[in-house]
Protein backbone atom coordinates (compact mmCIF):
# COMPACT_ATOMS: atom_id res chain seq x y z
CA UNK A 1 0.00 0.00 0.00
CA UNK A 2 2.96 2.21 0.65
CA UNK A 3 3.90 1.89 -3.03
CA UNK A 4 0.42 2.90 -4.19
CA UNK A 5 0.25 5.92 -1.92
CA UNK A 6 3.66 7.02 -3.16
CA UNK A 7 2.43 6.85 -6.72
CA UNK A 8 -0.56 8.96 -5.82
CA UNK A 9 1.75 11.37 -4.06
CA UNK A 10 3.93 11.66 -7.15
CA UNK A 11 1.09 12.29 -9.54
CA UNK A 12 -0.68 14.72 -7.24
CA UNK A 13 2.31 16.84 -6.29
CA UNK A 14 2.65 19.67 -8.76
CA UNK A 15 6.41 20.16 -8.48
CA UNK A 16 7.07 16.48 -9.14
CA UNK A 17 4.85 16.47 -12.22
CA UNK A 18 6.46 19.68 -13.45
CA UNK A 19 9.85 17.99 -13.11
CA UNK A 20 8.71 15.04 -15.16
CA UNK A 21 7.23 17.22 -17.91
CA UNK A 22 10.36 19.32 -17.95
CA UNK A 23 12.48 16.18 -18.29
CA UNK A 24 10.21 14.67 -20.92
CA UNK A 25 10.36 17.85 -23.00
CA UNK A 26 14.15 17.83 -22.99
CA UNK A 27 14.38 14.11 -23.77
CA UNK A 28 12.02 14.51 -26.73
CA UNK A 29 13.69 17.69 -27.99
CA UNK A 30 17.13 16.13 -28.04
CA UNK A 31 15.82 12.85 -29.51
CA UNK A 32 13.89 14.44 -32.36
CA UNK A 33 16.54 17.00 -33.32
CA UNK A 34 19.34 14.44 -33.06
CA UNK A 35 17.36 11.91 -35.11
CA UNK A 36 16.87 14.47 -37.89
CA UNK A 37 20.53 15.46 -37.83
CA UNK A 38 21.51 11.79 -37.78
CA UNK A 39 19.33 10.96 -40.78
CA UNK A 40 20.69 13.82 -42.87
CA UNK A 41 24.28 13.03 -41.91
CA UNK A 42 23.71 9.32 -42.42
CA UNK A 43 22.34 9.74 -45.95
CA UNK A 44 25.21 12.01 -46.96
CA UNK A 45 27.88 9.78 -45.46
CA UNK A 46 26.35 6.65 -46.98
CA UNK A 47 26.18 8.18 -50.47
CA UNK A 48 29.71 9.56 -50.28
CA UNK A 49 30.98 6.26 -48.93
CA UNK A 50 29.37 4.34 -51.79
CA UNK A 51 30.37 6.73 -54.57
CA UNK A 52 32.62 5.41 -57.28
CA UNK A 53 36.33 5.62 -56.59
CA UNK A 54 37.69 8.68 -58.26
CA UNK A 55 40.39 11.20 -57.65
CA UNK A 56 37.98 13.88 -56.42
CA UNK A 57 36.12 11.55 -54.03
CA UNK A 58 39.23 10.13 -52.37
CA UNK A 59 39.42 12.59 -49.47
CA UNK A 60 35.66 12.73 -48.72
CA UNK A 61 35.50 8.94 -48.76
CA UNK A 62 38.43 8.67 -46.38
CA UNK A 63 36.86 11.23 -44.03
CA UNK A 64 33.59 9.29 -44.00
CA UNK A 65 35.43 6.10 -43.19
CA UNK A 66 37.33 7.73 -40.33
CA UNK A 67 34.12 9.29 -39.02
CA UNK A 68 32.27 5.97 -38.93
CA UNK A 69 35.21 4.15 -37.38
CA UNK A 70 35.73 6.68 -34.58
CA UNK A 71 32.06 7.12 -33.73
CA UNK A 72 31.30 3.43 -33.67
CA UNK A 73 34.52 2.63 -31.86
CA UNK A 74 34.17 4.96 -28.86
CA UNK A 75 31.57 5.14 -26.07
CA UNK A 76 28.65 7.53 -26.45
CA UNK A 77 29.25 9.01 -23.00
CA UNK A 78 32.81 9.87 -23.93
CA UNK A 79 31.65 11.50 -27.17
CA UNK A 80 29.16 13.57 -25.18
CA UNK A 81 31.87 14.66 -22.73
CA UNK A 82 34.19 15.65 -25.56
CA UNK A 83 31.44 17.71 -27.19
CA UNK A 84 30.49 19.39 -23.91
CA UNK A 85 33.90 19.92 -22.31
CA UNK A 86 36.22 20.21 -25.31
CA UNK A 87 34.57 21.19 -28.55
CA UNK A 88 31.71 23.33 -27.23
CA UNK A 89 33.35 24.31 -23.95
CA UNK A 90 32.15 27.87 -24.40
CA UNK A 91 30.54 29.73 -21.53
CA UNK A 92 26.86 30.22 -22.22
CA UNK A 93 26.69 27.81 -25.17
CA UNK A 94 23.29 26.10 -24.89
CA UNK A 95 23.71 22.53 -23.69
CA UNK A 96 20.69 21.40 -25.71
CA UNK A 97 22.57 22.17 -28.90
CA UNK A 98 25.70 20.45 -27.62
CA UNK A 99 23.71 17.32 -26.79
CA UNK A 100 21.79 17.41 -30.07
CA UNK A 101 25.00 17.60 -32.05
CA UNK A 102 26.65 14.87 -29.99
CA UNK A 103 23.75 12.45 -30.42
CA UNK A 104 23.10 13.45 -34.05
CA UNK A 105 26.72 12.89 -35.01
CA UNK A 106 26.68 9.57 -33.20
CA UNK A 107 23.44 8.45 -34.80
CA UNK A 108 24.62 9.50 -38.25
CA UNK A 109 27.38 6.91 -38.27
CA UNK A 110 24.97 4.09 -37.50
CA UNK A 111 22.33 5.37 -39.93
CA UNK A 112 24.99 5.57 -42.66
CA UNK A 113 25.88 1.93 -42.15
CA UNK A 114 22.19 0.94 -42.17
CA UNK A 115 21.58 2.80 -45.42
CA UNK A 116 24.67 1.32 -46.99
CA UNK A 117 23.48 -2.16 -46.08
CA UNK A 118 20.02 -1.36 -47.47
CA UNK A 119 21.39 -0.19 -50.80
CA UNK A 120 23.68 -3.20 -51.06
CA UNK A 121 20.73 -5.49 -50.37
CA UNK A 122 19.12 -4.45 -53.67
CA UNK A 123 20.16 -6.90 -56.36
CA UNK A 124 22.92 -5.55 -58.59
CA UNK A 125 20.86 -6.76 -61.55
CA UNK A 126 18.40 -3.91 -60.92
CA UNK A 127 21.19 -1.37 -61.38
CA UNK A 128 22.53 -3.18 -64.43
CA UNK A 129 19.11 -3.25 -66.05
CA UNK A 130 18.71 0.48 -65.47
CA UNK A 131 22.14 1.33 -66.82
CA UNK A 132 21.70 -0.99 -69.82
CA UNK A 133 18.67 1.07 -70.85
CA UNK A 134 20.86 4.15 -71.00
CA UNK A 135 19.82 5.68 -67.68
CA UNK A 136 22.52 7.51 -65.75
CA UNK A 137 23.83 6.14 -62.49
CA UNK A 138 22.03 8.89 -60.55
CA UNK A 139 18.66 8.24 -62.21
CA UNK A 140 19.03 4.50 -61.68
CA UNK A 141 19.80 5.13 -58.03
CA UNK A 142 16.91 7.53 -57.51
CA UNK A 143 14.18 5.71 -59.43
CA UNK A 144 15.08 2.06 -58.99
CA UNK A 145 17.55 1.32 -56.21
CA UNK A 146 16.59 3.75 -53.43
CA UNK A 147 12.84 3.04 -53.55
CA UNK A 148 13.65 -0.64 -53.06
CA UNK A 149 16.36 0.00 -50.48
CA UNK A 150 14.05 2.09 -48.26
CA UNK A 151 11.92 -0.96 -47.53
CA UNK A 152 14.96 -2.82 -46.26
CA UNK A 153 16.31 0.16 -44.35
CA UNK A 154 13.21 1.21 -42.37
CA UNK A 155 13.41 -1.55 -39.70
CA UNK A 156 17.09 -0.90 -39.07
CA UNK A 157 16.58 2.86 -38.88
CA UNK A 158 13.73 2.22 -36.45
CA UNK A 159 16.07 0.26 -34.21
CA UNK A 160 18.56 3.08 -34.36
CA UNK A 161 15.92 5.66 -33.37
CA UNK A 162 14.84 3.53 -30.41
CA UNK A 163 18.42 3.15 -29.25
CA UNK A 164 18.94 6.89 -29.68
CA UNK A 165 15.94 7.84 -27.53
CA UNK A 166 17.06 5.62 -24.67
CA UNK A 167 20.66 6.69 -24.99
CA UNK A 168 19.74 10.34 -24.45
CA UNK A 169 19.35 9.43 -20.78
CA UNK A 170 23.09 9.94 -20.36
CA UNK A 171 22.75 13.72 -20.82
CA UNK A 172 22.27 13.82 -17.07
CA UNK A 173 26.01 13.16 -16.93
CA UNK A 174 26.70 16.65 -18.25
CA UNK A 175 24.13 18.09 -15.84
CA UNK A 176 21.10 18.30 -18.10
CA UNK A 177 17.62 17.85 -16.76
CA UNK A 178 16.07 15.06 -18.80
CA UNK A 179 13.53 12.40 -17.92
CA UNK A 180 16.04 10.18 -16.15
CA UNK A 181 17.49 13.09 -14.19
CA UNK A 182 13.95 14.07 -13.17
CA UNK A 183 13.39 10.61 -11.69
CA UNK A 184 16.64 10.81 -9.79
CA UNK A 185 15.86 14.23 -8.32
CA UNK A 186 12.29 13.34 -7.39
CA UNK A 187 13.52 10.22 -5.65
CA UNK A 188 16.26 11.95 -3.71
CA UNK A 189 16.22 12.54 0.07
CA UNK A 190 15.02 16.14 -0.19
CA UNK A 191 11.90 15.05 -2.06
CA UNK A 192 10.21 11.64 -1.94
CA UNK A 193 13.16 9.86 -0.38
CA UNK A 194 12.34 6.78 -2.46
CA UNK A 195 13.70 5.93 -5.87
CA UNK A 196 11.49 3.03 -6.83
CA UNK A 197 8.34 5.00 -7.63
CA UNK A 198 9.75 7.83 -9.79
CA UNK A 199 12.06 5.39 -11.56
CA UNK A 200 9.16 3.07 -12.37
CA UNK A 201 7.01 5.95 -13.61
CA UNK A 202 9.78 7.31 -15.82
CA UNK A 203 10.44 3.81 -17.14
CA UNK A 204 6.82 3.71 -18.24
CA UNK A 205 7.28 7.02 -20.06
CA UNK A 206 10.25 5.64 -21.99
CA UNK A 207 8.31 2.46 -22.73
CA UNK A 208 5.36 4.46 -24.03
CA UNK A 209 7.56 6.56 -26.34
CA UNK A 210 9.34 3.52 -27.72
CA UNK A 211 6.09 1.63 -28.12
CA UNK A 212 4.51 4.48 -30.08
CA UNK A 213 7.57 4.73 -32.28
CA UNK A 214 7.59 0.98 -32.92
CA UNK A 215 3.93 1.16 -33.84
CA UNK A 216 4.58 4.00 -36.29
CA UNK A 217 7.46 2.15 -37.92
CA UNK A 218 5.38 -1.01 -38.32
CA UNK A 219 2.70 1.07 -40.01
CA UNK A 220 5.16 2.61 -42.47
CA UNK A 221 6.69 -0.78 -43.15
CA UNK A 222 3.30 -2.32 -43.84
CA UNK A 223 2.40 0.40 -46.32
CA UNK A 224 5.72 0.06 -48.14
CA UNK A 225 5.43 -3.71 -48.34
CA UNK A 226 1.88 -3.49 -49.71
CA UNK A 227 3.40 -2.86 -53.14
CA UNK A 228 5.09 -6.25 -53.06
CA UNK A 229 1.90 -8.23 -53.16
CA UNK A 230 -0.38 -5.99 -55.16
Amino acid at each position, binding site marked *: MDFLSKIIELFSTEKYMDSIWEGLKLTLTISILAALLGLVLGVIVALVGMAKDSWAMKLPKLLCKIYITIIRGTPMALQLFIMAYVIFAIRGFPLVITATIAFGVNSGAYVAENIRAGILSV*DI*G*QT*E*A*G*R*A*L*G*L*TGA*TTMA*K*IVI*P*QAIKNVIPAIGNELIALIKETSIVSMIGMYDLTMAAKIIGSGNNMASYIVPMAVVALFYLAIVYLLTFGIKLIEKRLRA*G*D*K*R
Partner: protein
Amino acid sequence: MISVKNIYKDFGKLRVLDGVSCDIKDGERVVIIGPSGSGKSTMLRCMNLLEEPTYGEVWIENDLLTAPDPYLHFDVIRKSKTYSSLMKSAKAAAPGKSEEELDTEIIAKIKKEDLLKRFEGGEYSKALSEINKESRIDINLARRNMGMVFQHFNLFNNMTVLQNLTLAPLELKLKTKEEAEKTAMELLARIGLEDKANEYPSRLSGGQKQRVAIVRALAMNPKVMLFDEPTSALDPEMVGEVLELMKDLANEGMTMVVVTHEMGFAREVADRVIFMCEGKIAEEGTPDEIFSNPQNPRTKQFLDSIL
Protein backbone atom coordinates in the same frame (compact mmCIF):
# COMPACT_ATOMS: atom_id res chain seq x y z
CA MET B 1 27.43 -2.68 -86.14
CA ILE B 2 29.49 -3.81 -83.15
CA SER B 3 33.23 -4.20 -83.37
CA VAL B 4 35.08 -5.85 -80.54
CA LYS B 5 38.79 -5.29 -80.97
CA ASN B 6 41.23 -7.48 -79.11
CA ILE B 7 39.63 -7.21 -75.70
CA TYR B 8 41.08 -8.61 -72.51
CA LYS B 9 39.25 -8.72 -69.23
CA ASP B 10 40.93 -9.43 -65.92
CA PHE B 11 39.06 -9.97 -62.68
CA GLY B 12 41.90 -9.54 -60.22
CA LYS B 13 44.45 -12.13 -61.28
CA LEU B 14 41.98 -14.15 -63.28
CA ARG B 15 42.01 -13.50 -67.01
CA VAL B 16 38.48 -14.08 -68.26
CA LEU B 17 38.82 -12.71 -71.78
CA ASP B 18 42.09 -13.37 -73.48
CA GLY B 19 42.25 -11.29 -76.63
CA VAL B 20 38.85 -11.56 -78.30
CA SER B 21 37.95 -9.83 -81.54
CA CYS B 22 34.74 -10.05 -83.46
CA ASP B 23 32.53 -8.03 -85.74
CA ILE B 24 28.77 -8.16 -85.60
CA LYS B 25 27.31 -7.04 -88.91
CA ASP B 26 24.07 -5.16 -89.37
CA GLY B 27 21.13 -7.57 -89.24
CA GLU B 28 23.32 -10.49 -88.29
CA ARG B 29 22.21 -13.05 -85.70
CA VAL B 30 25.19 -14.29 -83.77
CA VAL B 31 24.94 -17.01 -81.15
CA ILE B 32 27.77 -17.48 -78.69
CA ILE B 33 28.13 -20.89 -77.10
CA GLY B 34 30.73 -22.44 -74.85
CA PRO B 35 31.29 -24.12 -71.50
CA SER B 36 30.58 -22.14 -68.36
CA GLY B 37 33.47 -19.88 -67.40
CA SER B 38 34.55 -19.56 -71.00
CA GLY B 39 33.95 -15.81 -70.95
CA LYS B 40 30.93 -15.69 -73.25
CA SER B 41 28.76 -13.66 -70.87
CA THR B 42 31.65 -11.36 -70.05
CA MET B 43 32.22 -10.73 -73.74
CA LEU B 44 28.54 -9.88 -74.22
CA ARG B 45 28.61 -7.58 -71.22
CA CYS B 46 31.71 -5.87 -72.60
CA MET B 47 29.73 -4.98 -75.70
CA ASN B 48 27.62 -2.48 -73.76
CA LEU B 49 30.27 -1.82 -71.17
CA LEU B 50 28.45 -3.35 -68.22
CA GLU B 51 31.88 -4.87 -67.91
CA GLU B 52 34.77 -2.59 -68.80
CA PRO B 53 37.46 -4.39 -70.79
CA THR B 54 40.92 -4.22 -69.24
CA TYR B 55 42.48 -3.75 -72.69
CA GLY B 56 41.04 -3.44 -76.15
CA GLU B 57 38.29 -1.40 -77.71
CA VAL B 58 34.60 -1.75 -78.39
CA TRP B 59 33.09 0.21 -81.28
CA ILE B 60 29.47 0.72 -82.22
CA GLU B 61 29.47 1.78 -85.85
CA ASN B 62 31.79 4.79 -85.76
CA ASP B 63 31.59 5.42 -82.05
CA LEU B 64 34.17 4.29 -79.56
CA LEU B 65 32.71 3.07 -76.26
CA THR B 66 35.88 2.25 -74.34
CA ALA B 67 38.90 4.38 -73.66
CA PRO B 68 41.21 4.19 -76.67
CA ASP B 69 43.70 1.37 -76.38
CA PRO B 70 47.11 2.64 -77.50
CA TYR B 71 48.22 -0.84 -78.54
CA LEU B 72 45.60 -0.81 -81.28
CA HIS B 73 46.83 2.45 -82.81
CA PHE B 74 50.30 2.16 -84.33
CA ASP B 75 50.59 5.89 -84.96
CA VAL B 76 49.98 6.45 -81.24
CA ILE B 77 52.67 3.94 -80.31
CA ARG B 78 55.06 5.73 -82.69
CA LYS B 79 54.61 8.92 -80.68
CA SER B 80 55.58 7.33 -77.37
CA LYS B 81 58.88 7.91 -75.64
CA THR B 82 59.38 4.16 -75.37
CA TYR B 83 59.16 3.85 -79.15
CA SER B 84 61.61 6.63 -79.87
CA SER B 85 64.17 5.36 -77.39
CA LEU B 86 63.86 1.81 -78.72
CA MET B 87 64.17 3.15 -82.27
CA LYS B 88 67.30 5.04 -81.36
CA SER B 89 69.04 2.05 -79.82
CA ALA B 90 67.86 -0.27 -82.61
CA LYS B 91 69.28 2.07 -85.24
CA ALA B 92 72.60 2.13 -83.42
CA ALA B 93 72.63 -1.65 -83.04
CA ALA B 94 71.69 -2.49 -86.62
CA PRO B 95 72.53 0.41 -88.91
CA GLY B 96 71.93 -1.67 -92.03
CA LYS B 97 68.22 -2.27 -91.52
CA SER B 98 65.60 -0.07 -93.12
CA GLU B 99 63.35 2.17 -91.03
CA GLU B 100 60.20 0.21 -91.97
CA GLU B 101 61.71 -3.07 -90.86
CA LEU B 102 62.74 -1.62 -87.52
CA ASP B 103 59.33 0.00 -87.11
CA THR B 104 57.50 -3.30 -87.52
CA GLU B 105 59.89 -5.03 -85.16
CA ILE B 106 59.66 -2.41 -82.44
CA ILE B 107 55.89 -2.14 -82.57
CA ALA B 108 55.62 -5.91 -82.34
CA LYS B 109 58.01 -5.91 -79.39
CA ILE B 110 56.12 -3.13 -77.57
CA LYS B 111 52.81 -4.91 -78.06
CA LYS B 112 54.13 -8.28 -77.06
CA GLU B 113 55.92 -7.14 -73.94
CA ASP B 114 53.39 -4.51 -72.88
CA LEU B 115 56.05 -1.80 -72.75
CA LEU B 116 53.91 1.33 -72.86
CA LYS B 117 53.92 3.20 -69.59
CA ARG B 118 51.48 5.65 -68.12
CA PHE B 119 53.40 8.74 -69.15
CA GLU B 120 54.81 8.59 -72.62
CA GLY B 121 55.15 12.26 -73.33
CA GLY B 122 52.94 15.05 -74.59
CA GLU B 123 52.73 13.94 -78.22
CA TYR B 124 51.50 10.53 -77.15
CA SER B 125 48.85 11.87 -74.77
CA LYS B 126 47.73 14.32 -77.42
CA ALA B 127 47.29 11.54 -79.95
CA LEU B 128 45.21 9.54 -77.48
CA SER B 129 42.96 12.42 -76.53
CA GLU B 130 42.58 13.18 -80.23
CA ILE B 131 41.02 9.75 -80.72
CA ASN B 132 38.90 10.30 -77.65
CA LYS B 133 37.63 13.59 -78.97
CA GLU B 134 36.93 12.28 -82.43
CA SER B 135 35.24 8.97 -81.71
CA ARG B 136 34.40 8.47 -78.06
CA ILE B 137 30.68 8.50 -77.31
CA ASP B 138 28.95 8.90 -73.98
CA ILE B 139 28.19 5.37 -72.85
CA ASN B 140 24.67 6.26 -71.73
CA LEU B 141 23.93 7.51 -75.23
CA ALA B 142 25.35 4.38 -76.82
CA ARG B 143 23.38 2.09 -74.55
CA ARG B 144 20.08 3.55 -75.75
CA ASN B 145 20.68 1.74 -79.03
CA MET B 146 21.55 -1.57 -77.41
CA GLY B 147 18.85 -3.60 -75.74
CA MET B 148 20.03 -6.03 -73.10
CA VAL B 149 18.17 -9.06 -71.77
CA PHE B 150 19.47 -10.73 -68.62
CA GLN B 151 19.40 -14.25 -67.32
CA HIS B 152 17.47 -13.18 -64.22
CA PHE B 153 15.12 -10.80 -66.07
CA ASN B 154 15.90 -7.87 -63.75
CA LEU B 155 12.52 -6.26 -64.09
CA PHE B 156 12.26 -3.26 -61.76
CA ASN B 157 10.47 -4.73 -58.74
CA ASN B 158 9.20 -1.40 -57.47
CA MET B 159 7.29 -0.64 -60.66
CA THR B 160 4.36 -2.08 -62.55
CA VAL B 161 4.90 -3.81 -65.88
CA LEU B 162 3.80 -0.67 -67.72
CA GLN B 163 6.14 1.54 -65.69
CA ASN B 164 8.97 -0.88 -66.42
CA LEU B 165 8.41 -0.26 -70.11
CA THR B 166 7.96 3.50 -69.95
CA LEU B 167 10.63 4.41 -67.39
CA ALA B 168 13.59 4.79 -69.72
CA PRO B 169 11.79 6.55 -72.63
CA LEU B 170 10.27 9.01 -70.15
CA GLU B 171 13.35 9.61 -68.02
CA LEU B 172 15.46 10.19 -71.12
CA LYS B 173 12.75 12.47 -72.51
CA LEU B 174 12.50 10.51 -75.75
CA LYS B 175 8.71 10.34 -75.66
CA THR B 176 5.75 12.02 -74.04
CA LYS B 177 3.83 10.05 -71.44
CA GLU B 178 1.01 9.28 -73.91
CA GLU B 179 3.39 8.13 -76.63
CA ALA B 180 5.42 5.99 -74.25
CA GLU B 181 2.34 4.33 -72.82
CA LYS B 182 0.89 3.75 -76.26
CA THR B 183 4.09 2.06 -77.45
CA ALA B 184 4.28 0.08 -74.24
CA MET B 185 0.72 -1.19 -74.59
CA GLU B 186 1.37 -2.14 -78.21
CA LEU B 187 4.44 -4.08 -77.15
CA LEU B 188 2.53 -5.77 -74.34
CA ALA B 189 -0.26 -6.65 -76.77
CA ARG B 190 2.34 -8.24 -78.97
CA ILE B 191 3.31 -10.66 -76.21
CA GLY B 192 -0.30 -11.06 -75.07
CA LEU B 193 0.20 -9.46 -71.67
CA GLU B 194 -1.84 -6.23 -71.96
CA ASP B 195 -3.93 -7.40 -69.01
CA LYS B 196 -0.79 -7.49 -66.84
CA ALA B 197 0.12 -3.85 -67.51
CA ASN B 198 -0.69 -2.74 -64.00
CA GLU B 199 0.63 -5.81 -62.19
CA TYR B 200 3.92 -5.86 -60.35
CA PRO B 201 6.64 -8.22 -61.64
CA SER B 202 6.30 -10.44 -58.56
CA ARG B 203 2.92 -11.55 -59.93
CA LEU B 204 4.30 -12.80 -63.26
CA SER B 205 5.68 -16.21 -64.16
CA GLY B 206 9.32 -16.54 -65.22
CA GLY B 207 8.44 -16.76 -68.89
CA GLN B 208 6.20 -13.72 -68.66
CA LYS B 209 8.90 -11.77 -66.82
CA GLN B 210 11.46 -12.55 -69.49
CA ARG B 211 9.11 -11.58 -72.31
CA VAL B 212 8.35 -8.31 -70.53
CA ALA B 213 12.09 -7.77 -70.13
CA ILE B 214 12.54 -8.25 -73.86
CA VAL B 215 9.83 -5.75 -74.79
CA ARG B 216 11.17 -3.35 -72.18
CA ALA B 217 14.39 -3.31 -74.18
CA LEU B 218 12.41 -2.99 -77.43
CA ALA B 219 10.60 0.07 -76.07
CA MET B 220 13.85 1.98 -76.65
CA ASN B 221 13.90 1.03 -80.35
CA PRO B 222 17.37 -0.49 -80.13
CA LYS B 223 19.48 -1.23 -83.18
CA VAL B 224 20.87 -4.37 -81.62
CA MET B 225 19.69 -6.75 -78.91
CA LEU B 226 22.06 -8.54 -76.56
CA PHE B 227 20.76 -11.65 -74.81
CA ASP B 228 22.64 -13.06 -71.84
CA GLU B 229 21.41 -16.63 -71.33
CA PRO B 230 17.78 -15.51 -71.54
CA THR B 231 16.30 -18.96 -70.90
CA SER B 232 18.74 -20.40 -68.36
CA ALA B 233 16.73 -19.37 -65.30
CA LEU B 234 13.39 -20.53 -66.68
CA ASP B 235 11.36 -23.63 -65.94
CA PRO B 236 11.52 -25.93 -68.97
CA GLU B 237 7.90 -25.37 -69.97
CA MET B 238 8.51 -21.62 -70.22
CA VAL B 239 11.58 -21.73 -72.41
CA GLY B 240 9.50 -22.14 -75.57
CA GLU B 241 7.52 -18.91 -75.25
CA VAL B 242 10.69 -16.85 -74.79
CA LEU B 243 12.50 -18.52 -77.69
CA GLU B 244 9.42 -17.97 -79.86
CA LEU B 245 9.56 -14.22 -79.21
CA MET B 246 13.28 -14.16 -79.94
CA LYS B 247 12.71 -15.98 -83.23
CA ASP B 248 10.08 -13.40 -84.16
CA LEU B 249 12.61 -10.67 -83.53
CA ALA B 250 15.18 -12.47 -85.63
CA ASN B 251 12.71 -12.79 -88.50
CA GLU B 252 12.08 -9.06 -88.37
CA GLY B 253 15.75 -8.52 -89.10
CA MET B 254 16.87 -7.37 -85.65
CA THR B 255 20.60 -7.57 -85.10
CA MET B 256 21.05 -10.02 -82.25
CA VAL B 257 23.88 -11.38 -80.15
CA VAL B 258 22.73 -14.29 -78.03
CA VAL B 259 24.64 -16.18 -75.38
CA THR B 260 22.74 -19.40 -74.85
CA HIS B 261 22.81 -23.10 -74.21
CA GLU B 262 19.81 -23.65 -76.51
CA MET B 263 21.49 -25.43 -79.38
CA GLY B 264 18.21 -25.89 -81.23
CA PHE B 265 17.73 -22.14 -81.28
CA ALA B 266 21.30 -21.59 -82.43
CA ARG B 267 20.91 -24.07 -85.28
CA GLU B 268 17.63 -22.58 -86.40
CA VAL B 269 18.21 -18.85 -86.06
CA ALA B 270 21.92 -18.08 -86.09
CA ASP B 271 23.76 -16.73 -89.10
CA ARG B 272 26.98 -17.40 -87.25
CA VAL B 273 27.89 -19.45 -84.21
CA ILE B 274 30.87 -18.53 -82.08
CA PHE B 275 32.34 -21.16 -79.81
CA MET B 276 34.27 -19.67 -76.91
CA CYS B 277 36.66 -21.53 -74.68
CA GLU B 278 39.02 -20.29 -71.98
CA GLY B 279 38.47 -16.66 -72.83
CA LYS B 280 39.17 -17.04 -76.53
CA ILE B 281 37.13 -17.61 -79.64
CA ALA B 282 38.02 -21.20 -80.37
CA GLU B 283 35.94 -21.58 -83.49
CA GLU B 284 33.30 -19.74 -85.47
CA GLY B 285 31.20 -20.49 -88.49
CA THR B 286 27.71 -21.16 -89.76
CA PRO B 287 25.55 -23.40 -87.55
CA ASP B 288 26.07 -26.17 -90.07
CA GLU B 289 29.84 -25.94 -89.90
CA ILE B 290 29.92 -25.82 -86.11
CA PHE B 291 27.31 -28.42 -85.29
CA SER B 292 27.84 -30.92 -88.10
CA ASN B 293 31.51 -30.60 -88.72
CA PRO B 294 33.39 -28.94 -85.87
CA GLN B 295 37.10 -28.51 -86.58
CA ASN B 296 38.40 -27.73 -83.13
CA PRO B 297 38.59 -30.76 -80.78
CA ARG B 298 37.33 -28.56 -77.92
CA THR B 299 34.20 -27.70 -79.90
CA LYS B 300 33.65 -31.35 -80.63
CA GLN B 301 34.10 -32.27 -77.01
CA PHE B 302 31.72 -29.55 -75.85
CA LEU B 303 29.02 -30.46 -78.35
CA ASP B 304 29.33 -34.15 -77.52
CA SER B 305 28.88 -33.41 -73.85
CA ILE B 306 25.65 -31.45 -74.26
CA LEU B 307 23.85 -32.98 -77.23
